[in-house]
């Protein structure tokens, strides 16, 4: 594995190893001196063509705690705003001798394209509506920390599935780890061809959140991505909440041991009520803190060893 572009790049062993290492990195995070010398002399560039707070800053912190030099390049304020192409930007940055490019781009497949143009390790930090593998890893890490081994656990992914890149990565990774996944969304936000996809990958899907809810070990609520919606996917926000939001009533129907995840940023009151987001069972802040540990682990696995390993 040279790059991390998709959750499908990870075998079960790879995923387990990354999650195990993340647990060690998490311990380092609690120390007074949060610095490991592993990536000393390596340079990581965060190339972000889309806005991001937690992904970019956690990659930055992760790189720094591993002693790499980390540089942020965002579309705003760079030559991208002068009309430079992705290829030219990537090659320019790579020509400076960087070891890894962490790329967030609005076009699905952009990081994969970049691998053809540069020698550096490429990490997909979210491409369009395609994938976001490090988010899936940190979700799995967080749930595993609370629920134990995810094999056989029932995990629901609920919300705006059409516009989400998190759902595909999570689905692939959770299946790799042996979890039992159910996708829940209103028909307008369910990916097209879901029946074939579900049959091929071995997961289930439903349009009825209330029916799925009582059986879950984890409810992963996805954000309603207003910025990607240009049509009428649901009549009113209120109607969405009634059908698919994690409301106070649904919170009661969720089993006692079950946990709540949300990749953030949260639309409070829309897909999740403030009560649910702030509950003890809510892992939302754990997810953020795991983000750094998981990304340290990913950087270590991709950059820590020999070049051609």
């Amino acid at each position, binding site marked *: 594995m040279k790059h991390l572009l998709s959750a499908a790049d990870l075998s079960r062993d790879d995923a387990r*190893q990354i999650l*195990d*290492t993340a647990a*060690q*990195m998490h*311990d380092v995070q609690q*120390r*007074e*001196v949060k*610095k*490991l*010398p*592993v990536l000393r002399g390596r340079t990581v560039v965060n190339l972000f063509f889309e806005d991001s707070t937690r992904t970019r800053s956690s990659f930055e912190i992760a790189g720094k705690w591993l002693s790499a030099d980390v540089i942020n390049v965002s579309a705003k304020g760079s030559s991208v705003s002068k009309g430079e192409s992705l290829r030219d930007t990537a090659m320019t940055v790579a020509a400076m001798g960087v070891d890894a490019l962490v790329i967030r781009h609005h076009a699905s497949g952009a990081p994969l394209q970049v691998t053809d143009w540069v020698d550096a390790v490429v990490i997909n930090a979210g491409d369009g509506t395609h994938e976001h593998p490090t988010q899936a890893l940190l979700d799995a890490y967080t749930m595993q920390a609370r629920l134990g081994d995810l094999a056989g656990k029932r995990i629901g992914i609920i919300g705006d599935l059409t516009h989400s890149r998190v759902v595909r990565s999570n689905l692939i990774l959770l299946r790799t780890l042996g979890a039992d996944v159910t996708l829940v969304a209103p028909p307008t936000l369910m990916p097209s061809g879901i029946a074939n996809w579900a049959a091929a990958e071995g997961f289930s899907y439903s349009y009825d959140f209330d029916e799925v809810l009582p059986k879950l070990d984890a409810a992963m609520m996805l954000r309603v991505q207003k910025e990607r919606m240009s049509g009428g996917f649901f009549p009113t926000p209120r109607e969405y909440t009634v059908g698919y939001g994690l409301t106070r009533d649904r919170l009661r129907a969720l089993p006692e041991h079950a946990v709540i995840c949300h990749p953030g940023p949260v639309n409070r009151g829309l897909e999740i009520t403030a009560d649910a987001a702030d509950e003890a069972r809510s892992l939302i802040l754990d997810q953020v803190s795991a983000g750094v540990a998981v990304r340290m682990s990913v950087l*270590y*696995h991709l950059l*820590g*060893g*020999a*070049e051609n*390993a």
Partner: protein
Amino acid sequence: MERPDSTVPRPEADPPGRIVLTASDISRALRRIAHEIVEHNKGVQDLVVLGIPTRGEALATRIVALLREIEGVDVPVGSLDTTMYRDDLRSQPTRAVGATTIPDSGVDGKVVVLVDDVLYSGRTVRAALDALGDLGRPQAVRLAVLVDRGHRELPIRADHVGKNLPTARSERVSVRLTDPDGVEEVRIATPHGELS
């Protein structure tokens, strides 16, 4: 480096070579090391014993059990992983990271005894000292090893040695312990696996 070569467990077949330490030799050596630690430290106050994964961890646990027998006190024990401090990371595929567990008492102002199975080039110990430096500032650091096979590449020596074992660089030393290997012995093998 000594770790990957000399300590790879071979649960199924016996590794080649002759036995240089038997189970009772190992027990006696550990008991002596425990006594030396107490003597040198004039008791067990402020001691922390840290094993270097994986065999060093097992040895550390056993040394602490012996210290309890000798002094009747539970000495804090932990493990110190050196993977991310190694100087050969770039020349090998990525390694799995082991566990670092530091007792709640921490290492600041303590006398830390590092425990490993084989002392060879000294590079693992160098990495352990760097790792320890990021965790705190011990009052002193000592090193206890079951086998010292020579061929140091760094100015490092052990304070407590189970057995000095003159070896050729080409020879392999394999340490196996009841826990985790199910067998307890130290073997030395010549390069082609001939029995000598």
